[in-house]
């Protein structure tokens, strides 16, 4: 522990320079922005390899990892799958990241995705004969609203009563699952002739059009990448604009940096917190709509997989910066797409990818760990991002 750090820490609690640097680095510190994530991914893959050795033996590491790489990047099919998997991750990652910027830990992306995806499906099958140019935006808007509603609840509770968003969003995740199961069995929503909870299929005019089917390659009609990817990139740009170019974004970041100072400076902290959660929920809702409108064309329990939780890792990995989140999402998309190939080709369970992802977050969240292992010098920082239970 250096002298300099001690002095910094002595200045008291109201100032939180350390985590602020971490979530919103003032200057671009390339060493910590690039080297730490790279080393984190590398370390996680090495530990993953150890796990493969322990369960399957030496021989399977190379086949497993080469299948992982091929499934992620080699050929149009793989690239399409990687970007397809990355798309909802971008939305959900943005939903968590914008929360971090305002000092809020949104674990509720999962539930917000559920509500968004469900509402989008309802709009998707409820209208017949609408032109796609009207129907698709309408369904997407419904997705945003569904998620925004589910973000509004923890937002207003945090702002008005101080109920910690970690608890309320976790609870709302569970409530969203149960609500989904209930609604999917209503005759108005359930697919005719089915007894399990599954929704009707959306009209063709509400499906997100595929992007790569025109390519002159074999099986081009199976390239599943769809419009949602471009919408996700657009959303990332909008979030960037809100956070760094607009007044309201400045207020969000001010609240995140120091709520007392923000209040003193005349910023409506309660309104800002509610607003952040509404936008975050809406973004996650778009992610849910992306899955139901673009991939499955219907809703069923578990259509969100674990995307809402992976989003936490993405926001950390991407330093809560939209560009970073897009890059991190493509990495995780590659892990997901490659992981499926790895399971099929080398017989290594896809859950290994979850372990690798968890390890990546550990190394990202504890840069000193990476520093200690690799003996590299990178920017000084530690990971105080949230503010405990205090309001």
């Amino acid at each position, binding site marked *: 522990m250096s002298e300099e750090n*001690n002095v910094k*820490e002595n200045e008291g609690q109201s100032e939180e320079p350390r985590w602020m640097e971490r979530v919103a680095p003032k200057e671009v510190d390339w060493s910590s922005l690039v080297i730490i994530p790279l080393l984190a991914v590398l370390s996680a893959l090495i530990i993953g390899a150890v796990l493969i050795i322990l369960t399957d033996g030496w021989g399977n590491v190379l086949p497993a990892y080469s299948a992982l790489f091929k499934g992620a990047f080699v050929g149009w099919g793989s690239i399409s799958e990687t970007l397809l998997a990355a798309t909802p991750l971008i939305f959900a990652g943005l939903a968590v990241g914008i929360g971090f910027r305002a000092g809020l830990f949104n674990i509720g992306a999962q539930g917000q995705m559920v509500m968004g995806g469900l509402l989008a499906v309802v709009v998707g099958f409820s209208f017949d004969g609408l032109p796609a140019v009207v129907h698709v935006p309408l369904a997407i808007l419904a997705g945003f609203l569904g998620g925004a509603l589910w973000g509004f609840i923890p937002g207003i509770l945090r702002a008005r009563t101080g109920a910690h968003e970690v608890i309320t969003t*976790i*609870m*709302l995740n*569970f409530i969203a699952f149960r609500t989904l199961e209930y609604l999917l069995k209503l005759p108005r929503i359930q697919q005719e002739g089915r007894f399990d909870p599954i929704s009707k299929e959306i009209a063709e005019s509400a499906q997100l059009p595929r992007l790569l089917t025109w390519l002159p390659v074999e099986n081009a009609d199976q390239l599943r990448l769809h419009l949602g990817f471009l919408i996700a990139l657009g959303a990332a740009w909008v979030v960037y604009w809100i956070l760094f170019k607009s007044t309201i974004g400045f207020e969000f970041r001010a609240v995140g940096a120091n709520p*007392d100072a923000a209040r003193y400076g005349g910023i409506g902290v309660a309104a800002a917190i509610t607003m952040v959660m509404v936008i975050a929920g809406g973004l996650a809702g778009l992610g849910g709509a992306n899955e139901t409108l673009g991939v499955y064309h219907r809703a069923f329990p578990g259509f969100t997989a674990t995307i809402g939780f992976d989003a936490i890792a993405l926001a950390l990995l991407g330093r809560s910066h939209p560009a970073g989140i897009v890059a991190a999402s493509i990495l995780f998309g590659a892990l997901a797409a490659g992981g499926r190939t790895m399971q099929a080709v080398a017989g290594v369970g896809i*859950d*290994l990818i979850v372990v690798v992802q968890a390890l990546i977050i550990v190394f990202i969240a504890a840069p000193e760990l990476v520093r200690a292992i690799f003996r590299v010098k990178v920017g000084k920082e530690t990971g105080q*991002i949230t503010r405990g239970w205090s309001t």
Partner: protein
Amino acid sequence: MTVVPETAEQVRVPAEVRRARILGFTYLLLAAVVYFLLAVGTEGEVTFRFGDQPGDIDFTFSSAGLATFTAIVFAFLGGVQLTKGFGKKTNVVLGGAMGLFILAFLGWAAAGESLSMVGMLESTLFLAAPIAFGALSGVMCERVGVINIGIEGMLLTGAFTGAVVGSVVSPFFGLIGASLAGGILALALAVLAIKYRVDQIIAGVVINIFALGITSFLSAQVLVENAQEMNNPGVMGPIKIPILGDIPVIGRIFFDQNIFIYALYLIVIGMTYGLFRTRWGLRSRSVGEHPKAADTLGIKVFRTRYVNVFLGGLIAGFGGAFFTLGAVGAFNENMTAGRGFIGLAAMIFGRWHPVGALGAALVFGFADSLQFKLAVIGSGIPSEFLLMAPYVVTIIVVAGVVGKARPPAADGQPYIKQ
């Protein structure tokens, strides 16, 4: 420099008044709801059975009469709440009122039938156990200022280890292995939180993701193929305690349970005594409230935190074994299904006190048990709504209907030794 303090300090009094008023109107509203939904048009009688056999110890009420009585009591409580208020007894009164409400609701749902209350209370304790272990683990960690969001992961790892060690060696060693597995995860949390000063909530989330990933991976990779040898520990059955177990009603509920429930009693008693009556407890709490002051007095802040977080991990790991060794008898992927998070909520609900945590866990256990019961009776209420009831209750609780809970002052703050 005068920094405007957090709103809670400034507007405590108006907030309290507003809360009392809201509570008063809620009572009146509930009185109307109970009367019109549960009393009007309801026929038949309900029998609450407390004995083993029908006719042993029975209480029979007219369902409509019970609901009407409840409505009158609620109207009275609302009136008192709006005029005089109950002062310090507010929460006690609220708890009693909720109990009466549930009784009236049961009377309505089971009109014309009889309900075995002993069975329901027995399963309440059984269903509450893993939540309680999780909550106690949280209390242990947070009293020394380390937030433990990783309870869910520790429970899951405990469940996995308990099943594997329990199958390969013996259930008893399964318990030890499960505790240690939880302890090791807790040490990981401690190292990340104390040494590397990683954000504690992030560290906990990482532990959850990691635990889910590694147990699912090992389960799919190893357990599925060797289910007979490695995932078949058997269930540790109930052990009846002599004499105490023969007490009518109480004996069956409290003293004819499995080893986990007895361990739970011991841990709650031990922690309550330890935290509030011993030197160790005073030191632990001082580290959680004001580590700098504790350090000045010569208390080893880091060591106290490491030890208590490890102990918390042991409790969570042990509680995790409940899923495999105490209830199901085999490990399934993600079998804890969010109980750790409910435990976290129970800890807050129970105001960071072991007895409070147990009480809160029992409330959640009762909600679970009620939902199973109503599913059997067929009350016409969709089971999804009953299943989400505990989560809704949790949100209402943390949103402060039961008053503001105050965490240990240094909770979540890394300590840097000068």
